[in-house]
């Protein structure tokens, strides 16, 4: 039978390239999963889904029936539901697959698919969907199952919910502080206009009313809006350290008290406009810097990798009748019998009860080839089962397993902040000493010339010394830089990471998933096969559960409808079968009758048709695009490559990496962590790039830990930043950009010091009138903001000119 192959055929549902065997309503599909989703939607009149965006779907990942059954357990249900009563419940699911308008539309029309759903609402930014439903009509587990069936499998994490809330609350209080400061600043400005225009001589009484109103308006700013700065200054003062907030707080207090004094004694109009304006600008800076990627999580621990629940054999079951119940992973005890299905992760170190199983340890070790485990052998927690469901006996509780012992390392215990003294704080310390010295000199001078003026002059000096422009430099530079990085798909946890990135002088890579694609090895066929023969191979491999067969099957898009006769699998050798009277064998060289030697850098599968060897598939790990050029530009900054894999790829890797870079294989998670900390002891600032659970210790230990991922929706280990996999070729540019960010910050410092010098000369000579302050202070702040913003964008455009912005 002939198969027509159109090369540009894509799946109507998900847009993946596909073969033309699956058709429905004149539309082609890549797999039954996609077709099923289409059928569900079309039978419910929900095809508008496909009109809003082209190919909006995501390819379905296989989700077994019972995956969500545990959600109906009372305790878990209670934790997950936001509201629960007999007739009405509300739940919020985190759905990382939400990515387009069609997703929003479909998820907000869920009530058309399931009668028990009352209303659903999507929050696109946080990638959550909130569902109101009738608990008596539809179970929580079937809601999750429905979402999964549509390709929007919810990620359920019992801890995450109370973690996300505080950050939102903080954000809100900042917004409120900002709005109050802005409101007061605007109104104080209005009441200060007469002063600017010199009206104070004509109507003194009115002026006094204005001044008192100014005090009234400044009080909320003083007491509430600037409270973060005051608290931080007080804290660092108590610890006998000087950070940037100390001189700011001193300046703000001096400004406010002096103004109140001036107004109350009738000496002058005070500086309330400058005071409220400064607080307003400072808060804008803070708000600008607080760019967060709400849908990304940077602080995961091992728990988010593990399944929440598994099936456990009920103890009191009768012999011959097996009764399985879902149970939360943390309640597993030694001796429990559990059942793990295809593609599920083994939750605890356990012994295999069945004959054999294939376990993919790529999560733990980085080794991408599945390992065969035989009856009675130990399977470590974190391994993913491939193939037939198996029964296991738990050896150790989840919290004590081989893998989780990594989290008991010191790295995960110590708080993060103390690690690094920020540039701005170092500048502030020097700045504060200079100001202190200057104030003393001025005080001595004025004490000798005109003692009545001393207090006025000193407060003036302190007012101008308030380093607001200095404090604005860093937030605006780093805030802008965060956005530039975000546009180029490097999502950083916060602005401080940029500063640490700038000081990096050693870069360490993980192999699988970082330098190479984690899940998609490159498959190449050497030899000659017709399209029809290829389709036979594909069909034949479809019968086998061996990982290599599965890979080949997945990578040949042609399918034949031919029936396989006499299929046989020879463990460790290969498979054979008859298609249309042709006897086909796939497997090792000896099995197929191939006798030449090949280099063993990659796995090979030979194909023989009717006893004649026609060629072989070589399966090698695919290196990410552009990575070679990037490594070349990085030069000897690239310190090492640490891989959990065997040495199979050593030749390939040594052609990629700089000759001075160390290539280490068979590294355990602990080895990686130790390697990083040794580098740090040698005085290096280390950046680590990795992707798996096996890198999490190293990522945490390094100065900058970047998780590399192809899909920001999937789990990444705890890290400082998340980098989209296809952007890894620009890593050197990102590092250079971070470096220029610190240069810009320093230039901004120079600029603001200049303003301070001018203002100080006014203050020391006793000429700082409220009018001068009202012009000079906002001017310095605004010019610093403009300078840093423009500089960052110019530098970014120049450095990243060859990357298309997406």
């Amino acid at each position, binding site marked *: 039978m002939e198969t027509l192959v159109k090369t540009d055929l894509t799946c109507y549902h998900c847009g993946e390239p596909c073969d033309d065997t699956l058709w429905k309503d004149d539309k082609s599909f890549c797999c039954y999963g996609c077709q099923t989703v289409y059928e569900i939607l079309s039978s419910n009149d929900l*095809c508008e889904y496909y009109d809003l965006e082209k190919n909006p779907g995501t390819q379905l990942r296989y989700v077994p029936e019972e995956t969500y059954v545990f959600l109906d357990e009372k305790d878990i249900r209670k934790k997950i539901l936001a509201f629960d009563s007999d007739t009405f419940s509300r739940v919020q699911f985190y759905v990382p697959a939400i990515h387009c308008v069609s997703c929003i539309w479909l998820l*907000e029309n869920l009530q058309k698919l399931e009668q028990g759903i009352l209303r659903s609402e999507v929050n696109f*930014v946080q990638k959550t969907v909130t569902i109101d439903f009738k608990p008596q009509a539809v179970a929580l587990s079937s809601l999750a199952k429905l979402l999964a069936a549509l390709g929007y499998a919810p990620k359920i994490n019992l801890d995450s919910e109370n973690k996300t809330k505080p950050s939102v609350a903080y954000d809100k209080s900042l917004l409120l502080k900002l709005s109050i400061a802005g409101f007061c600043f605007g109104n104080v400005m209005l009441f200060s206009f007469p002063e600017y225009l010199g009206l104070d001589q004509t109507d003194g009484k009115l002026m006094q009313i204005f001044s008192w*109103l100014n005090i009234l308006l400044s009080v909320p700013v003083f007491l509430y809006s600037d409270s973060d700065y005051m608290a931080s200054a007080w804290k660092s003062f108590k610890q006998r350290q000087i950070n940037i907030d100390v001189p700011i707080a001193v300046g703000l207090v001096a400004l406010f008290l002096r103004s109140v004094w001036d107004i109350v004694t009738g000496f002058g109009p005070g500086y309330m406009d400058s005071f409220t304006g400064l607080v307003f600008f400072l808060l804008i800076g803070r708000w600008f810097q607080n760019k967060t990627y709400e849908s990304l999580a940077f602080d995961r621990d091992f728990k988010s990798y593990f399944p929440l629940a598994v099936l456990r054999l009920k103890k009191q079951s009768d012999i011959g009748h097996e009764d399985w119940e879902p149970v939360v992973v943390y309640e597993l005890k030694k001796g429990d019998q559990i059942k793990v299905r295809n593609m599920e992760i083994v939750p605890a170190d356990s012994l295999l009860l069945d004959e054999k199983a294939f376990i993919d340890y790529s999560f733990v070790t980085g080794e991408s080839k599945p390992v065969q485990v035989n009856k009675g052998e130990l399977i470590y927690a974190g391994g993913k089962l491939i193939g037939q469901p198996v029964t296991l006996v738990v050896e150790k509780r989840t919290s004590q397993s081989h893998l989780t012992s990594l989290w008991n390392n010191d790295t995960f215990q110590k708080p993060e902040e103390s690690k690094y003294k920020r540039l701005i704080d170092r500048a502030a310390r020097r700045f504060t000493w200079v100001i202190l010295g200057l104030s003393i000199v001025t005080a001595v001078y004025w004490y000798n010339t005109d003692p009545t003026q001393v207090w006025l002059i000193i407060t003036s000096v302190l007012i101008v010394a308030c380093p607001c422009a200095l404090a604005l430099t860093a937030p605006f530079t780093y805030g802008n830089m965060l956005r530039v990085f975000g546009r180029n798909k490097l999502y950083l946890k916060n602005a401080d990471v940029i500063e640490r990135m700038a000081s990096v002088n050693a870069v360490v890579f993980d192999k699988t998933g970082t330098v190479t694609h984690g899940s998609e090895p490159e498959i190449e066929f050497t030899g000659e096969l017709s399209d029809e023969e290829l389709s036979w191979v594909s069909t034949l491999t479809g019968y086998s559960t061996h990982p290599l067969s599965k890979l080949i099957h997945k990578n040949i898009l042609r399918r034949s409808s031919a029936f396989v006769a006499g299929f046989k699998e020879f463990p460790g050798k290969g498979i054979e079968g008859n298609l249309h009277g042709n006897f086909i064998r796939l497997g090792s060289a000896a099995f197929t009758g191939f006798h030449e030697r090949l280099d063993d850098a990659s796995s090979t599968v030979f194909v023989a048709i009717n006893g004649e060897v026609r060629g072989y598939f070589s399966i090698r790990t695919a290196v990410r695009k552009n990575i070679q050029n990037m490594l070349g530009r990085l030069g000897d900054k690239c310190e090492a490559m640490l891989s959990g894999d065997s040495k199979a790829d050593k030749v390939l890797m040594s052609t990629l990496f700089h000759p001075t870079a160390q290539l280490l294989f068979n590294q355990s998670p602990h080895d990686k962590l130790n390697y990083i900390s040794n580098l740090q002891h040698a005085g290096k600032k280390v950046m680590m790039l990795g992707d798996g659970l096996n890198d999490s210790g190293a990522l945490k230990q390094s100065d900058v830990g970047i998780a590399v991922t192809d899909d920001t929706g999937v789990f990444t280990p705890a890290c400082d930043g998340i980098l989209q996999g296809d952007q890894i070729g620009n890593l050197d540019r990102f590092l250079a950009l971070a470096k220029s960010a610190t240069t810009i910050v320093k230039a901004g410092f120079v600029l603001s010091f200049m303003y301070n010098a001018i203002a100080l000369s006014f203050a020391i000579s006793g000429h700082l009138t409220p009018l001068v302050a009202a012009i000079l202070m906002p001017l310095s702040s605004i010019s610093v903001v403009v300078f840093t913003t423009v500089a960052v964008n110019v530098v970014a455009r120049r450095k990243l000119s060859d990357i298309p912005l997406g």
Partner: protein
Amino acid sequence: MSIIILLILISLSIAIIFLLIFYWSMKSGQYDDTYTPSVRMLFEEKSKKSSNQKLNKKQGVTK
């Protein structure tokens, strides 16, 4: 003279009302998600769309 004080009081209290409205809108979560509502308002009402959809389907079948 006294009229200006009255005016100031009126303008200030109006400004404070706006501030309170802002506070309320923030507390009620209007700034939590700034993207979804902008898309949601463009979705068509179901009743109209479904009849179109059926027509399209029929055409697809006859083709």
